[in-house]
């Protein structure tokens, strides 16, 4: 039983953090979902999808961001400070991966238990229902879930697979396989991402990265793990100078140029407070609109932003530029329950310092942080 003193102390911590947050954030909006989500996926500049991951039935929700956040100059016109549910539906199983097909109102999901995919219609203005429209059989017998990638194309297509040996590009309308990645290794994938209209990175949990092109059946360029560790996460930045970051569960961060994956542009050692063990424990993402910055969640109870500007070839300890502690601060229970963890986070595609993050207690935050160096 939590004593009164403890309750008061927790309240104090919350109040302290609130005052602190006025300085460290330009905006901060907090939302509480009934059930936690493991995915946050942009479906437009103003909307995201979230979904439950419990073993039974789960909700899939499309949320609109607080208008007050998006308004900028015209903030005065927008009273709405909350997320608004604009569309919703139900999934029979957990949703571990959800990808929006750009240019459509379609989404593709995977339940993390095998490599089958479910197809969804996110709904239009005339309905608030997200409904399942079909499914795609998986490409392999797998106990890990599939990763999914999509990019804008003339006909809706999805790149998916649970292992490096079973990645394929499937046309949604016909179910036709347009491309298969020719790799023998059956290493589980940590991510799949398009780096151009036809080129993509298939990143494995062991740190191996394959760079391939859907136009050619030639074998992909393989890049071995950049260090001694058995669990890695990868992200590739957008834009002409594509940088790839690989992060290990021990906190080793290696940045390479896409065209020279064998070498490392720079390295650093990040501080690890938790011990991530599963692929879904950690999210690492380049900032779409902040050169050289990336974010990571899962190494501690916070979302951390790093700036690689000062990083060198020789690995050195790196400190975060900014840390979002909102989820851990507001989840103090004192009742012996497990500490909460960040399940996922994403950057806003255009606003340089806006992110969304979700935690295991069902909280979803959208925050626009102030660069401490300009304060």
């Amino acid at each position, binding site marked *: 039983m939590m004593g009164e003193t403890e309750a008061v102390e927790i309240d104090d911590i919350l109040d302290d953090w*609130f*005052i602190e947050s006025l300085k460290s954030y330009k905006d901060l909006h907090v939302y509480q979902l009934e059930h936690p989500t493991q995915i946050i996926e942009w479906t437009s500049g103003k909307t995201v999808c979230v979904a439950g991951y419990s073993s039974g039935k789960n909700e899939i929700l499309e949320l609109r961001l607080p208008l007050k956040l998006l308004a900028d100059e015209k*903030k005065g016109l927008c009273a709405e*400070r909350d997320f608004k549910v604009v569309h919703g539906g139900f999934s029979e199983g957990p949703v571990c991966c959800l990808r929006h097909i750009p240019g459509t109102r379609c989404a593709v999901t995977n339940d993390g238990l095998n490599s089958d995919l479910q197809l969804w219609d996110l709904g239009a203005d005339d309905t608030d229902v997200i409904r399942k429209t079909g499914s795609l059989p998986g490409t392999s017998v797998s106990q890990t879930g599939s990763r999914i990638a999509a990019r804008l194309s003339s006909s809706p297509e999805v790149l998916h697979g649970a292992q490096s040996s079973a990645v394929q590009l499937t046309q949604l309308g016909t179910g036709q396989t347009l491309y298969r990645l020719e790799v023998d290794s059956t290493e589980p994938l940590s991510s799949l991402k398009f780096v151009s209209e036809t080129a993509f990175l298939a990143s494995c949990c062991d740190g191996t990265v394959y760079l391939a092109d859907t136009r050619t059946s030639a074998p992909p360029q393989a890049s071995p793990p950049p260090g001694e560790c058995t669990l890695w996460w990868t992200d590739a930045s957008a834009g002409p100078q594509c940088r790839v970051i690989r992060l290990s569960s021990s906190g080793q961060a290696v940045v390479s140029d896409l065209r020279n994956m064998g070498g490392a542009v720079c390295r650093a050692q990040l501080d690890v407070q938790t011990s991530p063990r599963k692929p879904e424990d950690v999210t690492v993402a380049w900032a779409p609109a902040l050169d050289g910055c990336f974010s990571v969640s899962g190494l501690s109870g916070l979302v951390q932003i790093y700036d690689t500007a000062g990083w060198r070839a020789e690995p050195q300890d790196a400190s975060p530029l900014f840390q979002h502690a909102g989820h851990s601060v507001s989840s103090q229970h004192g009742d012996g329950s497990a500490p909460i963890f960040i399940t996922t986070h994403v950057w806003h595609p255009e606003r340089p310092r806006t992110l969304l993050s979700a935690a295991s207690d069902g909280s979803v935050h959208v925050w626009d942080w102030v660069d401490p160096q300009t304060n």
Partner: protein
Amino acid sequence: MTCMKRIFSKTRRITVGRLVGVTLTSGRCFHAELVRTESSGLPIVHHSKYVCDLPANHRFPMAKFPRVLHCLLQDQVITERQVWVPEIASKDLLGAVHTEDYLNNFISGRINEQEQRRTGFPWSEGIVRRCRYETGGTVLAAEVALQRGLACSTAGGTHHAFPSYGSGFCLLNDLAVAAKYLMNSSSRKRKVLIVDLDVHQGDGTAFIFKDEPSVFTFSVHCGKNFPVRKQQSDLDISVEDGLEDKEYLSTVAEHLPWLLETFRPDLLLYDAGVDPHWEDELGRLRLTDQGLYQRDHYVMKTVVKRGIPIATVIGGGYSRDINKLALRHSIVHRAATQVWRECGM
């Protein structure tokens, strides 16, 4: 006679022109650099030193104080002749509420990092000075209200300050200092009712007067807003997010008349915070400009009609559009001007 000496000895700050018309009525004197006893208009209390410099991009809308006055003058709601100028609050005045240690540390800049963080302000001599002037302004407004019936400061409402520490942009508790001083400044102890309609609970004030029967603290606030850790006012009304004009006004109307009837205050201090407004960045209620005006008019008219003196402070408001915010804060002064007229004051 000591009063006369106090006013006339400040010849550095008061020009000869302003001395014309200074009268002393019934031996009352004011903690003022400039009195306006010759003016028959609504007394407004303002000091140019209500502001200080803050680091660029600081979240506290410091510039609002002079802008409130400016927009009232520009819109010809008031004239300069109505503006009383307060003295800086002395250590003695402050010491009736704040601890000696805190005051010494506060004035000399020995507030540690952690304490500063909780206040939201980096310490500076400027911030000390402006807080003291602001507190002096609330004291003066209360003094003038006792004499004229109604007076409005263009600042004030720093209700999160506790005796030994500051919090939430509040470093000194102006309402508490004013209440304490006025409570004791007459031969018979005065009863003071503090009506705090800022969207955040007046926790500092509640704490300071929890054992003082002569001061009644009444706070209407949004439950989910800061502070999470609430104190216990004499009457707390915690309202739900999203409350709109009609329900909010009826909540105030439900309690104010019976409070006045049963407590029978000799003075009312009114925190007219505008952060219940729907555009406020921190507040979670949905009042409109009209709603705020109706609220302020209702409170002041109800109190004045019962012959109870009332002094108002502007309370909290958070918006990055300073002009809009200043205009919003000036609603209480406009409503007061209307009440002044309606009640033939």
